[in-house]
């Protein structure tokens, strides 16, 4: 059960101009699987957040690549975003995770830190591995038929932070 039927891998330079390319490609793959419009948007944003983190933090002086792998299952899509950077992009990612705290003065708000919060909120399952680069693996389950009304609502979001 739940055998991978297809695997799609993309390797692009870790540069801002390629993040949009990944976004459109992921959108196409999710659309092919039959996700709802809202779920496709969620997947797009989550994957883009992971890619943006690689672009911004994974590589310092050197140019690097990011690898996006999509495991297409019957009931879910698993997207892996990996870099080979040596810098601590995972620390940046985990820093200050959460929504905006409205009790703080506006002048103390941080402009970053929303990335992992969004990934965690928009996907059903998130795993992060930090071993020779960072790998984020995120899963969105495919909702079918009458359960569709609940899709993207209060889903059992779990984050496995190592």
């Amino acid at each position, binding site marked *: 059960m739940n055998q991978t039927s297809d695997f799609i891998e993309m390797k692009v330079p870790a540069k*801002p*101009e390629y*993040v*949009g*390319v990944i*976004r*459109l490609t992921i959108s196409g793959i999710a659309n092919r699987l039959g996700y709802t419009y*809202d779920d496709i*948007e969620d997947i*797009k*944003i989550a994957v*883009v*957040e992971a890619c*943006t983190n690689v*672009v*911004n933090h994974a590589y310092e002086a050197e140019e690097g690549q990011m690898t996006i792998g999509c495991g297409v299952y019957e009931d879910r899509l698993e997207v892996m975003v990996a870099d080979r950077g040596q810098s601590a992009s995972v620390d940046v990612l985990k820093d200050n995770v959460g*929504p*905006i*705290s*409205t009790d703080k003065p*506006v*002048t103390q*708000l*941080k*402009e*970053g830190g*929303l*990335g992992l*919060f*969004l990934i965690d*909120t928009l996907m059903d399952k998130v795993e992060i591995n930090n071993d020779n680069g960072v790998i984020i693996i995120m899963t969105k389950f495919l909702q079918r038929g009458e359960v569709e009304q609940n899709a993207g609502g209060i889903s059992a979001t779990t984050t496995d932070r190592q």
Partner: protein
Amino acid sequence: MNLEINHIEKEGKEYLFLQGEIDVYTSEKLKQTLLPLTAQKGNEVIVNFSDVNYIDSTGLGIFIGALKSTHNHESSMKLTGMAERVRRLFNITGLDEIIDIEDSEREEAK
């Protein structure tokens, strides 16, 4: 995969009409246009989102920066005409609590 920005000054207000997508690639351009406007004392900046179909955390970060700038420079910023999908991200992150977002004002300044 691009962002067009039109800046119109009308009746003492600064209008920015955005068209396209706000992500890590296009947000720098938005920042370069928006922040000088919020950095002028007394400026009323109105950003129109009617033709924005995508925003992510990099884009949200630009608006957090702009909001801070309005506090530091006694200017103001209002976001209008947001599609539901775009607005949802402001809701999820709690930004709608601190940023002035006005719905369905897309006809203004046209």
